[in-house]
């Protein structure tokens, strides 16, 4: 579904990703792990079109999207839950969700989806008319995930979705990830610090170090890998 080849990305004159290649098959959950500053967020930004790529190819569902602007990529079915959430602070929670459904038309379906998301994150229900800027850290993270789901993507890019969430909600989030993947066939790329849980849900995983992929394989194999345990799972 997603095919990345020799991707080089950076900021100004600083190159952060040095030729990354990987594959995300349709219906897969792929985890991307790596320490601080490895370039995970940079990769997600490049995939979603927030920053331009220097060279390389990004193919999505057979189409070259590497040079498309972010909004076109979303319309192709590629949604991102960004690091730091990037909510619309002066819009209400509900309006944020509606923005998530920007490319969709059917009012009734949109309303149903909002209902479904509020069921998954009941905390948001009480805050529906609150401005997103007033949300607590975790509430905001829930909203960011909900908002991305509203677009009915085919591929969901998650940049640290569990960030700032209470353990019980982290559980919910991973449940939702698995469920969406299982029931709706949603393909997911997942960046996580929480390597344990990420590897638990992921089918395959890539390990990023200083802008290059140093290791990849089945999630279960990597879980067993002692180096990975040592480095990314806190021993």
């Amino acid at each position, binding site marked *: 579904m997603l095919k990345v080849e020799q991707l080089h990305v950076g*900021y*100004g*004159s*600083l190159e952060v990703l040095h030729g990354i290649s990987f594959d995300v098959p349709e219906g897969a959950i792929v985890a991307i792990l790596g320490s601080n500053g490895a370039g995970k967020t940079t990769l997600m930004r490049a995939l979603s079109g*927030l*920053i331009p790529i220097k060279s390389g190819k990004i193919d999505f569902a057979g189409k070259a999207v590497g040079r498309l602007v972010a909004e076109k990529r979303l319309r192709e079915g590629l949604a991102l839950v960004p690091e*730091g959430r990037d909510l619309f602070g002066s819009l209400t929670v509900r309006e944020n969700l509606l923005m998530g459904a920007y490319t969709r038309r059917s009012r009734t379906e949109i309303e149903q989806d909002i209902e479904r998301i509020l069921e998954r994150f009941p905390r948001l229900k009480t805050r529906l008319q609150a401005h997103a800027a007033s949300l607590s850290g975790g509430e905001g993270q829930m909203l960011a995930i909900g908002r991305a789901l509203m677009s009915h993507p085919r591929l969901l890019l998650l940049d640290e979705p569990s960030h700032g969430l209470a353990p019980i909600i982290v559980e919910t989030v991973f449940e939702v990830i698995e469920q969406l993947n299982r029931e709706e066939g949603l393909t997911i790329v997942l960046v996580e610090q929480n390597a344990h849980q990420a590897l638990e849900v992921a089918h395959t995983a890539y390990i990023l170090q200083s802008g290059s992929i140093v290791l990849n394989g089945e999630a279960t194999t990597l879980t067993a890998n002692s180096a990975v345990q040592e480095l990314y799972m806190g021993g």
Partner: protein
Amino acid sequence: MTQKPAVDQELAPDVVAQPELTGKKTLGGRLASQRVWLGCIAGILALILLPMLSDLIFGGSSDFQLHHISLIGIFILAALAQNILTGYAAQPSLGNAAFFGVSAYVLTWLSSDLGQPYWIGILAAVVVSALLGLIVGTPALRISGAHLAVATLGLVTTVGALLNFWDTTAGRQNYDLSNLPDFLNDDRTLYYFIFAIVVCLLFLSYHLLHSRVGRAWIAIRDNETAAEAFGINLTKYKLQAFVISAAMTGLAGSLYATWATTASSSMSSADQTIAFLAMIVVGGLGSLTGSILGAIFVGFLPLLLGQLPSPMVIGSFQLQISTLITGIYGLLLLLVLIFFPSGLSSLGTQAGNWLQRKPSKGGTE
């Protein structure tokens, strides 16, 4: 005009070599700071030698040209003042022209009407401006963003109207600043006088902005909440910025009156105050070099354009340039803003980066 910092933090490139902000520990930093020093010395030398150069080029009209150049100095002061307030302490105030105008009137009133010595006049003008800065700064603590911008813009036009009202009730058509000390009637000494002040204030500001006070202002600009949580008294530092900025603008205003030998209510006008803001935006918010470049661009370019021959004859075609000057200036301004959205000083930074990279390549590390 929200209070977001000028740089898009999320995606802006890492400006490691911003000589204004980094310390001096690294080799590159040391080289950069040496270069800064060399630049300063070269600049001062150039300023000293400029009158002679002007004699060579302009001959008889040299004094008049120097008089024009002195104006840049006055604008640099005003831009510096606006930059401290807006570029560093992040107060989007458009009120500086009010200080500019009031100080000119105070000086003129004291020396022309009351016959006080010029120096007393200058001193009083600066003090009155500073006080006014305090008075304006106090409500500004509660008002922010575009609201503050509009409120202070209103202040400027109101003050302008009141100064004009004073003129008319006093029955004068122009307010002559007559009894200047002799040496200020001389273009050359006026030039040296103004630029000596400019160099001093740039020097002092440079240190101030790199001191505890400057850091507090930048902290307020970057993040008010965090600044407060780390013990920075927002009230105090914002007020200080207002007062310092007002005093400096006041100095610039009284020098302007000295320069033009008249005070006019148009000094406190929307056009004037927006010009100050334009200077620092064109030059670069939060950058000393930016204040200089911006003052030259905004303060001097229209004058230069005014020197274009009009009508300009291009082949058989006659162009009435004089009616187009404002538009040409606007267009140039627009182009600069499009190509240097964070100011002309970014040009300097880029050049600096490039210069700095070179030696370290062949360097010892």
